[in-house]
């Protein structure tokens, strides 16, 4: 049985004028750590709200933990833990009171499922009498995760838990998710950070309400259709503009300290040709190398293919 299944889910707002998601289908296996990767406005939150039964889709069907999101919404609510993108705990209650509140709502106690949250809760326990509104971003995030876990859910739905959080807290958070996965909990997590995609077992890339690809990060990278080159010189911004004017270059964009380049056609002397072109344009310290693409390269490629293709 799949933990989450979506079949051609569509949702519009504003009387059909605003398309949020369009015919989205994917499956999350039981026990899987599955990432929904996309930027703001891609439709991630609409999908989470449909799966948590707080929003009705226009069409299509979906199940969570084997239950239908429309017919069996009550069953689902007892079986999922949900962490919305916006911090939604009670700011005027303390850490401990928030946790007790959510335990009580689900008819359980902190002690009953303490094992599940222990590792996370221990980190915020010294502040258990502090009001949630007075906590830092990283601590709020940990508390929200504890509250989502307190009733021992089968499926954890996390909507952008690491947005706006610094690199250190993000690493800690993903370590927690990995530990929860080891305990058998299915996790569906969304993120706008492409580098976090590699931490998931499988991912769905979503843009403008449509799924562009669903696979393991490795397979998505493998299916990158062409050779990718990294380039730099002493004047990277000029190099970017120069390569964009090269008729042989298909795409050229900044990527960290390098430029990433794809060619319209690949031949035997691509690196030499690129070097020669850069030298002709007066660049010094030219560095060009063939590289393995990352998820972000694949995402950019898929976005560009989408916009180039005529709309169906």
């Amino acid at each position: 049985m799949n933990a989450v299944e979506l079949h051609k889910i569509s949702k519009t707002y504003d009387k059909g004028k605003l398309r949020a998601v369009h015919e989205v289908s994917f499956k999350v296996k039981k026990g899987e750590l599955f990432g929904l990767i996309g930027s703001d406005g891609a439709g991630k939150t609409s999908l989470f709200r449909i799966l948590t039964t707080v929003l009705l889709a226009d069409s299509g069907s979906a199940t969570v933990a084997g239950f239908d999101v429309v017919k069996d919404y009550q069953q689902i609510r007892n079986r999922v833990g949900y962490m919305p993108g916006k911090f939604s705990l009670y700011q005027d209650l303390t850490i401990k009171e928030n946790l007790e509140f959510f335990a009580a709502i689900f008819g359980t106690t902190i002690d009953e499922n303490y094992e599940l949250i222990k590792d996370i809760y221990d980190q915020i326990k010294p502040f258990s009498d502090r009001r949630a509104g007075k906590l830092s971003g990283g601590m709020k995030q940990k508390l929200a995760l504890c509250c989502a876990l307190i009733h021992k859910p089968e499926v954890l739905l996390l909507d952008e838990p690491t947005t706006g959080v610094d690199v250190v807290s993000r690493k800690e958070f993903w370590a927690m998710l990995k530990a929860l996965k080891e305990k058998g909990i299915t996790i569906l997590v969304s993120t706008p950070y492409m580098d976090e995609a590699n931490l998931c077992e499988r991912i769905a890339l979503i843009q403008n309400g449509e799924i562009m690809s669903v696979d393991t990060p490795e397979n998505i990278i493998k299916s990158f259709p062409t050779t990718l080159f990294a380039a730099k010189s002493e004047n990277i911004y000029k190099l970017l503009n120069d390569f964009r004017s090269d008729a042989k270059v298909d795409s050229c964009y900044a990527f960290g300290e390098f430029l990433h380049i794809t060619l319209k056609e690949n031949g035997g002397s691509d690196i030499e040709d690129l070097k020669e072109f850069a030298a002709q344009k007066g660049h010094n310290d030219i560095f060009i190398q063939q590289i393995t693409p990352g998820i972000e390269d694949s995402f950019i490629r898929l976005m560009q293919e989408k916009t180039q293709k005529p709309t169906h």
Partner: protein
Amino acid sequence: MEDNKAIICKDLTKQFGDFYAVNKISFEVAKGEIFGFLGANGAGKTTAMRILCGLSYPTSGTATVAGFDVYKQQESIKKNIGYMSQKFSLYENLTVLENIEFYGGVYGVPGKEIKKRSDELIMTLGLQSEAKKLVGELPLGWKQKLAFSVAIFHRPQIVFLDEPTGGVDPVTRRQFWDMIYQAAASGITIFVTTHYMDEAEYCNRISVMVDGKLEALDSPANLKKEFGVNSMDEVFYQLARGAKRSGE
């Protein structure tokens, strides 16, 4: 003196009671430089930026921004800088043109000049058919590009960008950085914070704040060399993981 410096900070400090939000930071930003201002949550970035934008007084130390003193010339600072953040940028209930006119007016750009520049801007951004639409109806990527353009509409000497690309797709993020490069090439100094470490690489120099102090300041290449790592992500991680503070 120091004609080529956009920002000069010396031992800049902000104390709240016995808490040092910003603790004796010193740095200089050259004119036309793209300067990355990084730090973990709670490191003191926002407090420092508020001082540099003329919104808050330091407790001690000195700083000038665009040649103006942060103690005595806050109003002059505000006139000579631009500011954009992900959280606040444009009025959603005003049209594209109205937003441009509003900001132009606030910053004292003469009426005729507003007209001329906004026509140019709409052309450059390719927003001709959207000029009379409400900003709230634009896709996020467009809003952010427009917000940046509006932030430099009055031709400030320095523009402060507070996490300008949060949540934006990877293609739009790069288009945004194209605009930043262009602005820098035209002589505007860029002071930018980001959580995307690949974007840190686009800066000429990077500073990293940890617990109120400036713990590192150099070019991305030199920082990576110094820490013996391959990415800014690792530089940042090494610096910030020892941080004691995590508050906002």
